[in-house]
């Protein structure tokens, strides 16, 4: 070459002259928690960087498929007017599956088809992409395809403060006053900070899901809903092959989301693949007709933190806050997760906004996040069900015997065979108590009531 070459560094310096490499807040992960946090921060005037590892926000995100209206509305008012949603849910059913039968209870209210709605079926990939645009419009900086691998620390004499993040790219260090970890259930960074102890396979469930295409009309006919309305079914019992867990079927516009989640430790013992569990559920006589003729569009998997209240990590430290699945904020009993994630993101952001006012991002100030969670439904609910997981895990008959008994009882009651109803009740009672002693049942019910009631 005959010309004077400017060094690449000089060229880069020139190009990067106005690029900010320091932010007030960094949010790691553009899932429900991170998006809610970044949105609230940006709206609150905090200079925010949101870092997502996928190609676009949503590309790595998986959930069963229900978005709760109220907490979302709290963050983005009237979101339903423009967000990509599937169907507003007007009916929720619970199915207790035994081998070939189903005992069903449900609640349907057309009032849920009106603003402000109760909940919607959604696809995370589409919803999160939309919400990320909102976050950017609100003023946050979003970068994708970048993995946060570590933290920057400020070491002072008396304390160690998180002072930014390290990414897997060249020149990949960015500084910030505070980092919000919204990395999801694979809580690698949370563990790196020592805030979460190593989790056991009894604290986590693996969920697998399929998206199955069906014509709109077929969905409405099969689920007995009006045009545009949606229904959900939660399935317990045989749906998980007797393991601790739950299945679900949600109606989308022209697809169904069908999935099943089981505890990893139980799955390990069963020797089964999660897809096998799902396939068996799909073959159940009560489920199969709902899916008939459908075409699978996608297969997904995610782990669900089921550790509950006891496994919630330390939620804050100097310069850092943990939200959403990374903080184990999942209500396993009510199948709620994304709403806890969003609300925790919002509360974390509000804490940061206050900390910014004070100019103090130490754990003393950030502890307010923990207090907010404690005062909110999030930790109250988790506390309420703190023993549910342990109870259900240590009593497998909730998933094996009771569905069978329910089936037996219902079958007896509904079979018209000229046996007097009183005799039937006696027969049922006899069968039930012979399978599990009366005192055991009473004990189960009492504990269940204490735990869930």
């Amino acid at each position, binding site marked *: 070459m005959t010309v004077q070459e400017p060094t690449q560094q000089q060229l880069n310096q020139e190009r990067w002259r106005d690029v900010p490499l320091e932010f007030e807040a960094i949010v790691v992960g553009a899932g429900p928690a991170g998006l809610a946090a970044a949105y609230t921060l940006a709206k609150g005037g905090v200079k925010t960087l949101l870092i997502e590892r996928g*190609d676009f926000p949503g590309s790595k995100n998986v959930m069963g498929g229900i978005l709760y209206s109220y907490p979302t509305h709290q963050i983005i008012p009237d979101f339903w007017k423009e967000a990509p949603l599937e169907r507003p849910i007007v009916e929720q059913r619970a199915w207790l599956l035994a081998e070939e039968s189903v005992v069903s209870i449900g609640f349907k209210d057309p009032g849920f088809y009106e603003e402000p709605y109760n909940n919607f079926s959604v696809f995370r990939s589409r919803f999160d992409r939309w919400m990320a645009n909102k976050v950017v419009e609100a003023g946050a900086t979003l970068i994708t395809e970048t993995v946060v691998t570590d933290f920057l620390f400020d070491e002072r004499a008396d304390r160690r403060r998180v002072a930014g993040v390290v990414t897997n790219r060249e020149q990949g260090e960015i500084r910030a006053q505070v980092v919000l970890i919204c990395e999801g259930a694979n809580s690698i960074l949370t563990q790196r900070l020592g805030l979460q102890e190593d989790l056991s396979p009894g604290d986590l469930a693996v969920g697998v899901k399929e998206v199955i295409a069906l014509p709109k009309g077929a969905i409405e006919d099969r689920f007995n809903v009006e045009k545009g309305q949606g229904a959900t079914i939660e399935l317990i019992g045989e749906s998980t092959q007797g393991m601790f867990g739950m299945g679900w079927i949600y109606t989308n516009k022209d697809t169904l989301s069908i999935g099943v989640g089981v505890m990893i430790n139980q799955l*390990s013992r069963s*020797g089964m693949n999660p897809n096998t569990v799902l396939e068996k559920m799909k*073959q159940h006589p009560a489920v199969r007709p709902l899916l008939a003729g459908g075409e699978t569009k996608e*297969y997904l998997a995610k782990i669900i933190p089921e550790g509950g209240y006891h496994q919630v990590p330390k939620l804050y430290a100097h310069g850092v806050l943990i939200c959403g699945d990374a903080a184990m904020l999942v209500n396993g009993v009510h199948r709620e997760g994304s709403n806890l994630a969003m609300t925790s993101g919002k509360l974390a952001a509000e804490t940061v906004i206050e900390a910014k006012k004070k100019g103090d991002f130490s754990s003393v100030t950030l502890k307010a996040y923990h207090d907010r969670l404690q005062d909110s439904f999030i930790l109250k609910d988790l506390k309420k069900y703190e023993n549910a997981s342990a109870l259900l895990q240590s009593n497998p008959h909730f998933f094996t015997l009771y569905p069978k008994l329910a089936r037996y009882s219902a079958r007896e009651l509904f079979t018209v065979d000229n046996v007097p109803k009183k005799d039937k009740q006696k027969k049922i009672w006899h069968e039930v108590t012979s399978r599990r002693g009366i005192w055991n049942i009473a004990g189960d019910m009492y504990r269940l009531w204490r735990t869930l009631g």
Partner: protein
Amino acid sequence: MQTLEDKLFLVRFQPDDHSHIHINNKELCQHDCPDKPCTYICPAKVYEWNEEVKAINVGYEGCLECGTCRYGCPRDNIHWVNPRGGFGVMYKFG
């Protein structure tokens, strides 16, 4: 019944040219792990026991990035990190 292969065919992957999953100690798999749960608990069956070489084959290209293996390996023998930014699974629906 729909096979897992059929389903994985529907998923969009952008695999990196190197694996984000590593088995720490092959000896452990061979000698101290009779059940090898990774070979069945993984929703994408990324892990496969290779009897010829007495080691687990890791088909990282089909990893759904759920993390079940991280917690399900009884010997804590799987080193799993997030794939490089922009690589790995890309869900269409989510």
